[in-house]
């Protein structure tokens, strides 16, 4: 990538309309305990998140359990409406589109998920799995679909004979290739990659990451790459967002974030993800404790209960995401 387009958190610059953007999106679930009414508790799974992904670039998204990654991917894929805020695709609110617009959205946005076993319908052959999006969303003839199928299979490095086989006849890595072929079948503008290599063997991960990168360059696809492996995210991404308990804590171009992390949580994550070097790695845990329950958010800054540098004011005031350097946003009182 020669240049990474400047991020556009609040207002996209003219001529640089992002492909997909979240504008101050919040998603609240009501959790029922025991099924008796009146006991519902509010779970803020995603809280005031604004993000944008320009075409043909990758936004990396990291965070630990309960950080809202999964909810965010559901919001991006238009599987759930935000409680407040807007999700926009190509400048249009995805929840106020007509039928045509919705169809267009399905053509433009697809996904690859973590579990290569659960992602493919065990009763369908690869042919049907890969061409289903074509069948549902395009008027392609059977012959054209077959041709497209062959080119997709070759794109992801599978032999033509794979088309007639069932998923159980493939290994995990090969299944993930099938899932990728399906995801790119309609030449989408955006693919949400939700932990696409976490379930794979270490020796297979690099194959899949390389494949994804090649396809991006070839077809000019934008990715939202959700992962917990910071090294893989660095390798894949242009922009990078760090989430903690539903909120963005840091959002910056990759070089800036890895070169000069500002938020104490980002720093901790990076410390925990050092490359393996015997003798040079500390066993001092960068953070104490564990992520608190999202049902019981701490007052003020939600990270303060584990923050090594927290002060009194962190318990009172919730920090806002602000731009501390061009394109580099952070949400912490103690960063200048």
């Amino acid at each position, binding site marked *: 990538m020669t240049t990474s387009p400047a991020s556009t958190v609040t207002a996209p610059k003219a001529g640089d309309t992002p492909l997909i953007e979240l504008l101050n999106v919040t998603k609240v679930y009501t959790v029922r*305990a*025991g*099924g*008796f009414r009146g*006991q519902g508790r509010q779970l803020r799974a995603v809280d005031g998140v604004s993000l944008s992904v320009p075409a043909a670039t990758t936004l990396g998204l990291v965070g630990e359990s309960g950080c809202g990654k999964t909810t965010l991917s559901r919001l991006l894929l238009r599987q759930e409406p935000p409680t407040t805020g807007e999700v926009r695709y190509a400048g249009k609110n995805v929840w106020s589109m007509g039928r045509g617009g919705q169809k267009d959205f399905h053509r433009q946005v697809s996904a690859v998920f973590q579990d290569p076993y659960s992602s493919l319908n065990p009763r369908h052959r690869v042919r049907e799995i890969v061409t289903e999006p074509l069948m549902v969303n395009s008027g392609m003839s059977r012959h054209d679909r077959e041709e497209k199928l062959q080119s997709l299979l070759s794109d992801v490095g599978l032999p033509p004979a794979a088309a007639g086989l069932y998923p159980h006849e493939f290994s995990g890595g090969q299944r993930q290739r099938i899932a990728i072929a399906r995801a790119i079948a309609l030449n989408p503008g955006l693919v949400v990659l939700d932990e696409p290599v976490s379930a794979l063997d270490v020796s297979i991960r690099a194959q899949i990451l390389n494949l994804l990168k090649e396809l991006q360059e070839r077809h000019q696809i934008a990715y939202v790459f959700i992962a917990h492996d910071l090294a893989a995210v660095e390798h894949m991404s242009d922009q990078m967002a760090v989430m903690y308990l539903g909120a963005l804590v840091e959002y910056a171009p990759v070089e800036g974030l890895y070169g000069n992390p500002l938020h104490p949580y980002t720093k901790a994550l990076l410390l925990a993800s050092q490359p393996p070097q015997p003798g040079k790695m500390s066993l001092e845990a960068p953070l104490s404790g564990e992520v608190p329950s999202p049902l019981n958010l701490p007052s003020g800054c939600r990270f303060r209960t584990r923050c090594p540098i927290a002060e009194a004011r962190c318990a009172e005031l919730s920090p806002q995401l602000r731009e501390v350097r061009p394109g580099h946003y952070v949400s912490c009182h103690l960063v200048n």
Partner: protein
Amino acid sequence: MTGYIVSRLIQTLVTIVGISVVVFFLARLSGDATALLIPPEATAEDREALKESLGLDDPLPVQYGIFVKGIITGDFGDSFRFGEPALDVFLDRFPNTLKLAAASAVVALLGGVSVGVLGAIRAGGFVDRLTTVIALLGQAIPSFLIGIMLILFFAVELRWLPTSGMAGPKTFIMPAIASAWYSMAALTRMTRSSMLDVMETDYIRLARLKGVPERAVIWKHAFRNALVPILSLFSLQIIFFVSGSVVIEQIFAWPGIGQLTIQAIFSRDYPLVQTIVFVTSTFLVLLNLGVDLLYAVIDPRIRLA
């Protein structure tokens, strides 16, 4: 915990309302309910009079309201055949059925669970094969056939046991076995598979890795976890015991509600049929509720939720 209890109570109430609807429509299924309630030789005027007195000309919701009011006040109408309140006739016989059901439940639970556990811990061995055979025979041979075979063998050929009637512990043996037969097989099967599932969990592995003796692994760690599906099946089986009484009591001339039902049906004693079906069902639903509350005792995840 309270949330769980309250939601189960609401569910139970809804189920009872559901049952009342089913029972209410039972009487109206044949189109003209009076046909069931009146001897065929009655005149058209008799019919009209009856219709009016039963409120059968009112719209359905009103009729249902009257029906529910009757239920709440314990008034199910008089039995045609016995000429006394249907509820009294029913309550007279119900304990006999319950006694037999209790005996069957003990046989089924003890037999099913012990054979099932043995089968699971000796998976693939002789005992296990025996459990499979028991489970299969239980599901394939109807209880009335077992009943007849028992009579043929122990009463007619060997003359060890009385053929029928209810008098003393000896008379319980054959009906209880015949009635428990199917349930014992089902419980054997469920116990075995539930135990096998639990035995594959990580916590059983860790218990073994801790050096817990195999007996404690099975009875302390595995069995209690396997118990929840076994109990839920058992609570369905209780329904089966009462339900199956219709057949068993007919074979062994047992003076319970099963026999009463058949008599009521053949004599078109509809108030009595309605009473039997509604009260028995409600009783069983409440029993089920009790079993569900028992889960909370077994499983802290429910108790502490």
